[in-house]
């Protein structure tokens, strides 16, 4: 059933294209698999009826902004709008070329969590639906209820800005998002409680299965380098061979490069085909950025990017 938000989205998108205010609409349409959506990037006004809003709009669509020529109308959740702001700060996209269609987000459902809890794969589940603040999962006629905090993505559970702050059109009033910061960072807490040796072993194991598909980098809006350091050959910073040491260094390098740009959208971890818990690195980094520099990525489009300026009273001597 089409929600009011969806209805509004479709009519706004249609108007934007018809009035020539945008050349493209970047949104979501139903995916080809159950409980998925897929990006819809179109300049055809007949396509707007395909647009959807659901608890499965996972992708951070801002990653496509640098590729579309002309003006784009983009559907953005809170985290995505922060990525857009961050891209504006870095002068990767210009605000004038954007119409931000804000979605007040009540969190994205983590299908992997549901799969684990019910012991079934996505395609074996018949239905997942919100009933009040419960997620009801139906399998073969049997219903199972889960609380919101059990089914939302970890990054959603610590989201401070579910409703976009930067937008042109807001599809609804600010929504309600259940947060549980402790649960959101439970894996990070486990890592913090480890000895350095234990942590080293942990990450060695995790990065041993990295296949260097670079999906983490490709879905990341903050990874906008024309040429990634991992692909430099003169000098060659890292081996292209997928040894765990180089895999680890690639990710550490990537994380540091996106410090102050990462908005904890969770896409890197979600995209990883071999289940490396990348958010444990990115979220921790976001916390450090906040603690040391009192900086939250993508919250002020007029602010200088964190890593592109310094203050006279910087803590470190070398930068003064």
């Amino acid at each position, binding site marked *: 059933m089409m929600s009011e938000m969806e209805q509004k989205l479709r009519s706004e998108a249609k108007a934007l294209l018809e009035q020539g205010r945008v050349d493209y609409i970047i949104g979501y349409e139903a995916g080809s698999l159950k409980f998925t*959506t897929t990006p819809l990037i179109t300049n055809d006004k007949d396509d707007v009826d395909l647009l959807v809003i659901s608890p499965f709009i996972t992708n951070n669509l801002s990653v496509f902004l640098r590729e579309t020529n002309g003006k784009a109308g983009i559907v953005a959740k809170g985290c995505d709008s922060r990525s857009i702001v961050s891209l504006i700060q870095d002068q990767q996209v210009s605000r004038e070329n954007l119409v931000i269609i804000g979605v007040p987000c009540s969190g994205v459902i983590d299908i992997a969590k549901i799969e684990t809890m019910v012991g079934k794969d996505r395609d074996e589940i018949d239905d997942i639906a919100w009933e009040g603040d419960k997620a009801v999962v139906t399998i073969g006629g049997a219903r199972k209820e889960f609380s919101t905090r059990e089914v939302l993505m970890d990054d959603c559970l610590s989201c401070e800005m579910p409703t976009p702050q930067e937008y042109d059109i807001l599809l609804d009033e600010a929504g309600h998002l259940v947060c549980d910061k402790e649960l959101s960072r439970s894996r990070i807490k486990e890592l913090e409680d480890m000895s350095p040796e234990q942590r080293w072993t942990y990450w060695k194991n995790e990065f041993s299965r990295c296949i260097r*598909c670079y999906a983490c980098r490709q879905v990341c809006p903050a990874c906008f380098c024309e040429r990634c350091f991992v692909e430099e050959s003169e000098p060659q910073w890292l081996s292209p061979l997928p040894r765990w040491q180089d895999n680890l260094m690639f990710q550490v390098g990537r994380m540091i490069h996106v410090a102050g740009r990462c908005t904890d959208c969770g896409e890197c971890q979600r*995209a990883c*085909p071999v289940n490396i818990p990348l958010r444990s690195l990115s979220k921790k980094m976001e916390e450090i950025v906040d603690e040391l520099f009192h900086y939250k990525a993508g919250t002020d489009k007029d602010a200088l990017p964190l890593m592109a300026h310094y203050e006279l009273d910087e803590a470190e001597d070398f930068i003064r």
Partner: protein
Amino acid sequence: MKKVKKQDIGKLLSQWQKEFTVFVSSKESGVAEMTPWDGKDTGFLDWYRNTVIPPKANFLPNMEKIFGFRKEEGGYNLEPPAAEERKQLIFGIRPCDAKALTIIDMVFQDTYEDTYYLNRRKNTLLVGMGCANPYDSCFCTSLGFGPAEATDVDLMLTDIGGELIIEEVTDKGKDLMGKAEGLEDANKDDEARAGETKEAAYQKVTRKIDTKAIQANLPNSFENEKFWEKIAAKCVSCGICTFLCPTCYCFDINDEKDARYRNWDCCSFPLYTQMPMENPREEKWRRVRQKVHHKYTFYPMLFDVIACTGCGRCIRMCPVNWDITRTLTSVPAEATAGTEK
């Protein structure tokens, strides 16, 4: 045909383990892949639908030393890799992944014989296991076979409930059965149930493509830039669909200070075709077009077979749900006047 009780699978694997390194599906590393059996656990029979990492990785590893080299007076001394390892047996390979090996054999034994890959192939027995529960992303039945078909393996197993029916497919498989102990003969009822199971599995594959129409239309789409631009728009150019594809075989070569290695490469990466002066596939749509055409146009031109077995990994694992079956079914039916810049 023989049969084995499910609870006796461990005994059978133990027998084989004496002669082979037995690979079974495992999630021990954090992702489902074929890894050496630990001699105990047969729990994979309960959860195993297919691995995320395709068994091609057992023949074309993601990283492999081709040879070592040492600089000596007058030139380099090359050191070929260590002698052949123990014989392998891959237990439970799915028909799609077994067929994929037959397909990529063609390229590895074409004008140049790739001894690294071919030696492993010669050295390995494939014990297939039919799917009882294909994924919704699977479309093998559109590629000319079924999810439980005894094809491209040495032995084929069909799960009929508490027991597995074993078909001898090749002579190698027959030899293996001749040596196996503690197996019962399957009776007529068992064989009939195996047939029903295969048919039921076949019916469960509901994703369909029309390969005849696709192969007729796809070549005409080549210069339809608008079509490919739209198809490619949401692709993020990562390596998931190709790295996890059982028929993608591209690799890169990298030298280190004392050895030459090869590792998987991928036509989605812009650097894949980067040359000193130009890159013929700088734009994303050209790369996506290449990927689709390679599987459904170019490979059939070269080897008379589509380089896709409908395993569905590229659909299941894609971070943006770029679906090759959607692309293939949306290819315009007639030649369009689009021209390439």
